């Protein structure tokens, strides 16, 4: 089957498959075998209990809000970083990656303290009656942080490549600035923008550490789906924990499939 006479196929392929099986596939298959201990109706009652449904809604809803917020914030930051020159631009550009590198527990800890009623930001929000910790808003804010780099980083190269020629052409033909943006610029960056938003969404859906620090984990209100799994786990209900985990896993597969399709469409659109 080898294309060339390079040695090592059996060794490297054997090691790869063994590693994959032992570390990933066999442990993951335990989700299926463990949750199959539940009867069909028990399975359904577990994964679709009011508490679990509320948690799914928050997980996906807050991630969606954060991704949309990042669509706007990320577009603005990418635009400023590509089109403007200002002192400290390189520094700002490298700061964008902080959420990629900062451990999630640190993000949760510092966001919790910033937005607490006496924190640097919370002290301005709390007189207005805005609860920015132990609330759904808190979840949205911290998810916006963890997924911030995606939109900026997917838009930057597209904006760089775009140049200003087509905009200038549109304007010389008498288009207003808004018309130029809507009809010339926006359609060409839309695929990248959507891809960035989708990546941010996927990242936010998978986030756990920072959220549990700021959300307060109140059942039916600020509990995200992984916390429901933790609850079953702490009660030694391994079968129920696996059932909910299985639902999350299937959802994230579906999501990643969707993102791949979107990314492929976006790349085709660019060429």
């Amino acid at each position: 089957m080898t294309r060339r006479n390079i040695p090592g196929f059996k060794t490297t392929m054997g090691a790869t498959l063994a590693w994959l099986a032992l570390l990933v596939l066999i442990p993951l298959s335990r989700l299926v075998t463990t949750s199959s201990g539940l009867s069909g109706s028990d399975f359904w009652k577990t994964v679709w209990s009011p508490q679990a449904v509320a948690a799914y809604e928050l997980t996906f809803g807050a991630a969606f809000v954060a991704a949309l917020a990042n669509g706007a914030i990320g577009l603005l930051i990418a635009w400023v970083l590509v089109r403007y020159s200002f002192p400290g631009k390189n520094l700002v550009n490298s700061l964008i990656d902080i959420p990629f590198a900062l451990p999630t527990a640190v993000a949760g800890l510092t966001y919790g303290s910033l937005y607490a009623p006496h924190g640097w930001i919370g002290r301005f929000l709390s007189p207005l009656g805005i609860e920015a910790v132990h609330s759904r808003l808190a979840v949205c804010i911290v998810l916006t942080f963890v997924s911030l780099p995606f939109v900026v980083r997917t838009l930057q190269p597209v904006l760089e490549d775009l140049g200003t020629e087509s905009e200038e052409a549109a304007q010389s033909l008498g288009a207003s600035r808004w018309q130029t943006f809507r009809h010339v610029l926006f359609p060409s960056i839309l695929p990248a923008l959507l891809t960035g938003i989708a990546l941010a969404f996927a990242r936010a859906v998978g986030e756990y550490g920072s959220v549990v620090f700021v959300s307060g984990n109140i059942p039916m209100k600020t509990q995200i789906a992984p916390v429901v799994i933790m609850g079953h786990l702490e009660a030694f209900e391994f079968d129920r924990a696996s059932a909910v985990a299985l639902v999350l896993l299937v959802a994230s597969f579906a999501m990643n499939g969707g993102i791949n399709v979107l990314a492929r469409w976006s790349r085709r659109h660019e060429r």
Partner: protein
Amino acid sequence: MNGRDDAPAWVRYLFLLTAMAFVVVLLLLPALNVLVQAFAKGLGGYVSAATDKDTLHAVFLTTAVALIAIAINTVFGVAASWAITKYEFWGKTLLVSLIDLPFSVSPVVSGLIYVLTFGVDTALGSWLDTHNIQILYAAPGIILATTFVTFPFVAREVMPVMEAVGSDQEEAALTLGASGWQTFWQITLPDIKWGVLYGVILCGSRAMGEYGAVSVVSGRITGKTDTMSLRVEKLYQEYQTQAAFTVASLLLFLAFVTLAVKAAVEWRLRRALAEAARRPEAR
């Protein structure tokens, strides 16, 4: 501010200021807050929190776990890249997506699967228990969960580099009588080293910062199975806020070092890829 945007000056300043406001509020203030709170009791308070016995153990455990996870995933990543890029076989796409699988598993689920595999109510778990081998709630469990969440990093970075460099030089060396290992060490490795290093950095950064998966398998025994992230959480819940922020500040420094090293390596990696593309015999 003389960029390529001919909007009126006030619009440009408005955009710039709003963007910078988001950068400050979302990125800079959280980082600054960590430092200010960590030094809330002065340098003395910082040093005594950072040199606390249990905190030092958490630093040691985190570093050791990350190094082991890096070692495992580097060997795996290079082997997998070799198998995938040097040969044609059926099911290649499937194999690549299986390697990426851990990326789509939620952190808590990543820990859960090892609890399900090694828990005492499983056959394997009870066998291990009777032979006094502890996996869960001990270092091996933490290593397994960490290795799982960082599984794809090295492979993902090395594969495109190996693909771009091609196999002609290896074939030439083999024809001239070099052994497989000689070829790997002297031809392949120098070509892919920046890709490997880049993957190692991503893997290490994620390994040291992992929280969810580790929190499920660690058992959180103070001074024994607490990693730095778990220590942050425990100190915070014990209302030792300044100490929690001290440990957090160590992780923050680590993040900045990661970003700096990553930028340097990224630059070299891009150069190496460009060089590979220029090589006439590469394609």
